[in-house]
């Protein structure tokens, strides 16, 4: 295997990593503040759809912003229900996923191209050329953001406040923190990042939206959050490990001599590797005490 192959695999992995890492970092904010959003898959799907439509009429940047806006709206609805209205986070998330699956497919049918909508080449995000291949600018965002997020969560006052609302909302409340507002902001921000990830899929990575474009990446992100133990830098690593082994598995399956092993077993490897890493290295992770519970003032 020559060096150029390695570069190719690396670049494919980086592209595959982006949606997982972005979504996971966003979810880390939400979970740190105590909200568990299983509806990430749905946010990815809907924002990929709206992002593609907006990019078509207004260009790539508008598309990405629309995706983020869509994520923000869904994240906002999710958090209002689960903060001020004391709703059940699990039910809300599952509902969002169901809704998204139906809504995007329905929307594509109404638009006249059921199941598929292409983003024209001129409305796509222009990749950055490097001597060894081209990369999407969002990759840089996905590489930098976890470190910024880590700094924000661990080193700033706001990070502490976020942590306090997730660990002990009662104490935070006593200390004068507006628990529900903090949670609302954190989860809405999580929605924004998931929205960016969704729009990235359609506007920058694949260039089209289909009714199943997210293909389970929201759930993989959820697993990545658990993998990271709410550490954004580990989420970057987790997203990369998954992206790398997924790309490697695809790569190996397309090698001429790979047919000695049934392709299904090679396709399993990214999932097995992730499990092994977690079982062998990461082990038990600790979550905020109040995760998943609405805060009700006594």
């Amino acid at each position, binding site marked *: 295997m020559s060096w150029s192959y390695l570069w190719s695999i690396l670049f494919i992995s980086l592209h595959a990593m982006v949606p997982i890492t972005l979504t996971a970092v966003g979810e880390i904010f939400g979970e740190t503040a105590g909200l568990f959003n299983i509806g990430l898959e749905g946010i990815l799907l809907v924002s990929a759809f709206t992002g593609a439509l907006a990019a078509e009429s207004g260009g790539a940047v508008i598309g990405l912003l629309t995706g983020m806006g869509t994520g923000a709206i869904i994240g906002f609805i999710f958090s209002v229900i689960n903060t001020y*209205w004391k709703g059940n986070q699990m*039910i809300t998330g*599952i509902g969002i996923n169901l809704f998204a699956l139906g809504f995007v497919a329905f929307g594509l049918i109404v638009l006249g191209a*059921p199941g598929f909508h292409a983003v024209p080449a001129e409305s796509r995000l222009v990749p950055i050329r490097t001597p060894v291949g081209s990369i999407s600018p969002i990759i840089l965002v996905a590489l930098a953001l976890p470190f910024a997020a880590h700094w924000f969560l661990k080193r700033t006052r706001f990070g502490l406040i976020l942590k306090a609302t997730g660990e002990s909302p009662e104490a935070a409340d006593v200390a004068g923190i507006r628990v529900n507002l903090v949670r609302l902001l954190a989860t809405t921000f999580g929605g924004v990042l998931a929205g960016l990830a969704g729009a990235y899929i359609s506007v920058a990575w694949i260039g089209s939206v289909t009714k199943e474009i997210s293909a389970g990446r929201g759930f993989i992100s959820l697993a990545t959050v658990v993998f990271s133990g709410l550490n954004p830098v580990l989420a970057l690593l987790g997203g990369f490990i998954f992206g790398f082994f997924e790309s490697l598995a695809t790569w190996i399956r397309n090698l001429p001599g790979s047919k000695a092993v049934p392709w299904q077993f090679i396709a399993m490897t990214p999932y097995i590797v992730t499990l092994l890493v977690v079982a062998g290295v990461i082990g*038990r992770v600790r979550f905020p005490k109040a995760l998943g519970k609405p805060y009700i003032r006594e």
Partner: protein
Amino acid sequence: MSTGIPNNRLRLLERAKRALPALTPALESLLAGIVGLLVGALIMWIGGYDPWKAYVALFRGAYRDMYGFASSLARGTPLILTALTFSICMRAGMFNIGAEGQVYGGALAAVTVGYFALPSGLHIIMGLIFAMLAGAAWSLVPALLKLTRGVHEVISTIMFNWIARFFAFYLVANVLVDPIRAEKTISVPASARLPILVHGTDLSYGLFVSVFFALVIYFLLWHTTAGYELRAAGLNPTAAHYGGINSKRTVLLSFILGGLGAGLAGATIVMGLPPTYAVYSGLPQLANVGFDGMAVAMVGRNHPIGILIAALFFGGMNAGGRMMQIIAGVPLEMVRVVEGIIVVALAIPELVRLFRFFRNRWRSLWRREPA
């Protein structure tokens, strides 16, 4: 009594007032249903469809006659079981997303009875047992990973779903493959099929398997010590720990019970759903049964009896949706949109209060306007 209402009538009113809180869940569900249907109607209207026609077709298709009712029940049968898988672990304080993969395992295990020849009754039991064992075995690994290595069940079950998917692909294409029709596995032989309950529909005795399992779970969770411990661990893990409840046993029990249920769900599909009685390549009849079960579990409030009702509702939405697209020409996807909104609306415990709040606001606005 100055009001002039007889004493016994007053007492009746009192009693009715006290009964109201118990009615709240039903009222909430009703309100959520209405919200879902209204938002769905709005989206349909924007998309250029006739919502009224669609809903009439949907509800007629789902519940009007025996055929529709049986179709709804048939569609709901496996969902009852996967919903139980999710809710047992939820009751024990764990988040088990693994039903999907366990359904694949159960279905393929049930198919293997095709290699044995047995009298009918035994053959069916053998299929059910195989499926339960496979489901439980697939569920056991995440449980053991959790107990020995501390691997969170969210990771392990999501990964196991994918591994199960590819492993199932392999088995369907290479091992259990039908020698004449390579697009599917061998079919479950007639002697191992769950008989059709209502002639001319796809409702089989699988329904009884589901309902029976739901009742067993209800009994186990609410009327045995082990079940009490399981629920206690979910309600307050710390207290349960100090109360001497063995958390390892709880984890194992809930995952194994869940796996049994998901495995059975796979069995009710391949042994109970006509006409193929086999697993197709690509798993088109198994995909999403596990995930839809999560929604059913949440709507049914993680209670076996609630799940039975919720499954009838979800089954009805899907069975009715088939008629909706035939009669009103509305794409089937609309069903998921409505389901999604209903589920979201159900998440809001104070929906009734919010409704009253906005109603009063509205009224006060209304009153002020003439002035």
